């Protein structure tokens, strides 16, 4: 039996035509087939949030999503669009400047979740930020700085919009 299935995935605005096995998760295909290793693999069961990506703008765990089911959808990862993405870049700058990155392993997932949060709710309260991140673990335990970074990104993006 030839297991390979041709699929077309739209990742960060670019279309990739690849042959994959149907039992591969989106996380495996992003990392291993497309070489996009920014999205991390850790718990493999939806608890840690390091594999978070956006599918049609909604944040999901790529470890719990079959790649074959992501066809026809818009996938966004921490790599961002080749031409650069101002919102993603601002969130990343805020994380760096506010000391929200220690070992950095949880950062891509946190940044992606922040993008989803700020898309729905541009001025979240601290409680709303913490609620949005319940599915993310930082084993360096730098949560205070992570919340501060998200507040910083929210207010800078708001100022940007006013200009």
């Amino acid at each position: 039996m030839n297991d390979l299935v041709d699929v077309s995935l739209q990742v960060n605005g670019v279309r990739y035509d690849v042959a994959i096995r149907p039992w591969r998760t989106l996380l495996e295909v992003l990392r291993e087939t497309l070489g996009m290793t920014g999205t991390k693999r850790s718990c493999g069961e939806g608890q840690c949030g390091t594999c978070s990506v956006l599918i049609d703008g909604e944040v999901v765990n790529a470890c719990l999503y079959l790649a074959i089911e992501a066809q026809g959808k818009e996938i966004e990862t921490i790599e961002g669009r080749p031409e650069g993405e101002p919102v993603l870049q601002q969130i990343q700058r805020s994380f760096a400047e506010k000391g929200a990155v220690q070992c950095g392993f949880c950062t891509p997932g946190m940044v992606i979740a922040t993008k989803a949060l700020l898309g729905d709710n541009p001025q979240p309260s601290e409680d709303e930020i913490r609620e949005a991140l319940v599915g993310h673990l930082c084993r360096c335990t730098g949560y205070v700085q992570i919340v501060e970074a998200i507040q910083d990104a929210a207010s800078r993006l708001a100022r940007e919009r006013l200009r």
Partner: protein
Amino acid sequence: MTYLRRLPKFEYVGPRTLTEVCSLISGGAPDDAMLLAGGTDAILQMRRRERVPRRVIGLKGVAELDFVREQADGGLSIGAMTTLHSLLSAPAIRQRYAILHETAAQIGGPELRNIATIGGNIAGALPCADLPPALMTLDAQIKLSSHRGERWMPLRDFFPEFGRTVAQDDELLSEIKLPRPAPYSAGTYLKFHDRQSMDMTVVGVGAFVVLDDDGRTVRELRLAYANGAPTVFRAMKAEAVLCGQLFGEKVLDAVAEAACSESSPRTSWRANAGYRLSLIRALTKRAIRRSWQSASSQKGTK
């Protein structure tokens, strides 16, 4: 290191309509084909090799199973593929079925709620699932569809034993229907767990109170439990204790005792059976008290 394991090999089919799904499962061999809704549990079952299906039938493309619709009779109809996120975004649920909103909000985080579905939460038949007790207190009916046709049944009769439903191998859960909420009624779901979030339920108690027009006598009480027994269940004997009674602490004690004797919780690493019974006793009273308070405050405003 199960978490690093790949999924077992399978063939994938992605039907677009309910009719196609029904014909795909009409053969009815359970381990041959597995339905994949959100996959938040199904993928983990495969990763742990608890299920090794030859074929996976993905339901995400079946748009006709994804809806929240208000009914002419004042009830609400929900498609099995509605995600928890969509439940939370539906104004009708927030306004008229607050217990369902409250319960969905307590499950997982945004990543999970964006893909986990109401149908998967019910059909997974987990004793710790949070939506079934809330839905049972709302007297939910469910629709099972197959190539032979469809049938409706009360959700409370859906779980005959641990991990099983009464659905035949050629049937899938397609729709959930909630009756119109009675006047002067309110419910609450109390989920007890160790962490604030992202944790499975140790014991969950759903209570729903319907008051008489006097605003004091309990016309109806519905109680349902997660992890109170090998399946989610309604404690109908305990419910009867309060029916037709005036609300009061003494009768509440009797209801809680009755609920404990109808329960048969298990001992696991999360909690032993005795601890779970203590939770059932305390949370039953708390859930009824809260529901009664909010039902009787509605009386005051009308």
